[in-house]
């Protein structure tokens, strides 16, 4: 079936060429959920077809994380093997994280990370045929905000779209933080770590889960209200 931008699409649908007609042929960018096959653009997952200038993609309520390079994720160390940690980031495969990709780590001075610890990490490489590789440092070998997440915090999962909403330009989390103090790490793999007073954590989780069904605009307007209301209960 031929589909247009803002349609609900299913795998196998063909994106009608009229969508591209007012663009230069060489300039369109296909985002997640679209692929080129014999000169035609086909949909490869269910969702809503979206367009922003040259970029086309399919937006859907995903729960399964597909690693992409340069994304920040929360991983749980599941194994130590040789020079690598095996880290679960919710993807189809465990990611690998070298002992050496921590700030100040050397062959002799290894980071003190145990199995079961959570790490805020960055995806370095994510290829289809290889296991993803993570790092806990930026390009200047500084750790910045990456690294071990305190075990006093609480981790829960949510949909991937929600994490994207939380990290959007509107900065809803900053608005919520105006009233109450909390520390939060949002991984794009749908995991959120929160460290705060026990009284704050629950309303915060509730608020975040409630944002799931609101549009960006509504989140922008209401998130701090919802949060303060949740806190009172």
């Amino acid at each position: 079936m031929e589909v247009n931008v803002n349609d609900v699409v299913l795998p196998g649908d063909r994106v009608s060429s009229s969508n591209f007609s007012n663009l230069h042929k060489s300039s369109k960018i296909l985002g997640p959920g679209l692929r080129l096959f014999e000169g035609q653009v086909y949909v490869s997952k269910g969702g809503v077809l979206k367009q922003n200038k040259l970029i086309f993609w399919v937006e859907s309520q995903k729960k399964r994380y597909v690693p992409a390079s340069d994304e920040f994720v929360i991983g749980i160390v599941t194994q130590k093997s040789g020079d690598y940690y095996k880290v679960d980031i919710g993807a189809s495969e465990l990611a690998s994280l070298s002992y050496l990709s921590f700030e100040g780590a050397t062959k002799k001075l290894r980071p003190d990370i145990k199995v079961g610890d959570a790490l805020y990490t960055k995806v370095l490489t994510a290829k289809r045929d290889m296991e993803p590789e993570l790092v806990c440092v930026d390009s200047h070998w500084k750790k910045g905000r990456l690294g071990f997440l305190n075990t006093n915090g609480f981790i829960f999962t949510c949909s991937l779209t929600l994490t994207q909403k939380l990290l959007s330009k509107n900065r809803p989390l900053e608005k919520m933080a105006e009233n109450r103090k909390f520390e939060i790490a949002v991984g794009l793999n749908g995991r959120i770590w929160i460290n705060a007073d026990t009284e704050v954590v629950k309303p915060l989780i509730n608020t975040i889960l409630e944002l799931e069904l609101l549009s960006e605009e509504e989140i922008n307007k209401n998130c701090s209200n919802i949060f303060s209301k949740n806190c009172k209960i």
Partner: protein
Amino acid sequence: MLSKDSLFTKYEKTFVHQALSIEKRLDGRSTDEYRKLDIAYGKDWGSCVVSLGETKVMAKVTCDVQQPKATRPSEGLLFMNVEISQMAIPNIEQSTLTEMHTNLSRLLEKCIKESHCVDLEALCIVAEEKVWNVRVDIVVLNHEGNLVGCCSIAALSALAHFRRPDVTIDGENVVIHDPADREPVPLSLHHYPVAISYAIFEGSEIVILSDPTEIEERSSQAELILGMNSYRELCGMHLMGSALIATDVILSCSRKAAEQALTLVTAIKKAVDEDKKQRDEKNVSCLVQRIRLDQELPGSQSRSMLSLKREEVKERVSEIIKEVQAAKKTHSSKDDDDDVVILSDDEIEVVRKSGPRSAESFSKKKHEQNPWKSISNADSKKDSDDAKSDATKNESSEKMVEDVISSDEDDVALVREFTSEDRIIGMIELSGDSEEEEIVTMRSKDLEAIGDEGKGKVKQEEDKV
């Protein structure tokens, strides 16, 4: 079930313990509180879906004719089968799942089969030759804690609902009647045993949680499962985990369980009765009808404490409308009376000076409540404000309330509806948080407006701004 498989165990454990130390559970329940139990029957006899919070289990009872066991020639057979798959519990290893499955089916057999709740002798057709074999299939749809409890409720509600075809024996001929020809007969149950599970946390003091969620089960030291019927009889007990518990803890648990069992069994019986009533009215519902989108989405579920029930909203709104109308009456009568009127609790003063209407001053302290309503908490103020201004709009108010209500427990929509209005932002300033006092003077025409339209409140706020 105790499964130590989650990735987040380390983080969850500390948090759950921390929360319990200040006597709080993650979902805001009290220690003895059960989650919402929902029993939905299907089209067939003996098929049901039971949900306990977000734990969901389906049970289905079927029967066929078989030869009895040689040791018990005059007793029917009862077979229980439990299925759990990774669809219900993702992120679990196969080995743990198998262990869980064995544990669960053993506990259910102990609770239901070995407590002899089904009258097996009534299932005999011809001794040593033909008996009914009743089979209970239980499928776990979603695991969110207290699986044993939910499964046992499901099995029991299915058994209580099930009807087998009627049988007549004529000499040597056994006739099994088609359900269309002759009403099928229900099973006879001696008693109703349910499994009640407790999560036990050891710390400076022992904390016991009933109906634990999955996270609570994982972070607890031990789990105690008690089979209990409505006559306070113990039908099975199982203690898992490593906590060292004194006998008095178990005793107090069993006392609590007895009461809990009674409420659960009453709920099951009520559900069976209701279904029978529905069937008498030829109004048989399928399970498909019970699947509603607004219940499946994460944001609309009861885990959020914010959710108000439909009825609650309706009640509150109608109450407020009444109050507004009553207050309006008193207010208008007040205008004709004395110079100074002091309402109850010194809430407000209306001072009338020499001029007939010109110099009425309306003083009001900011943190105090409005004269035409007496609702204390800030949340209801929000609602009431909405209702009050709507009350004058009559039909439109109803519509708006309907809008809010039609969102069907979707609390997010509720919040959206209210907070998007400008006046709500004004209301938040009015809430009791502020210690600051402010005296507002109203013009006489504003007072008229109150009398006429009841909109004075909004204007008053404008004045303030």
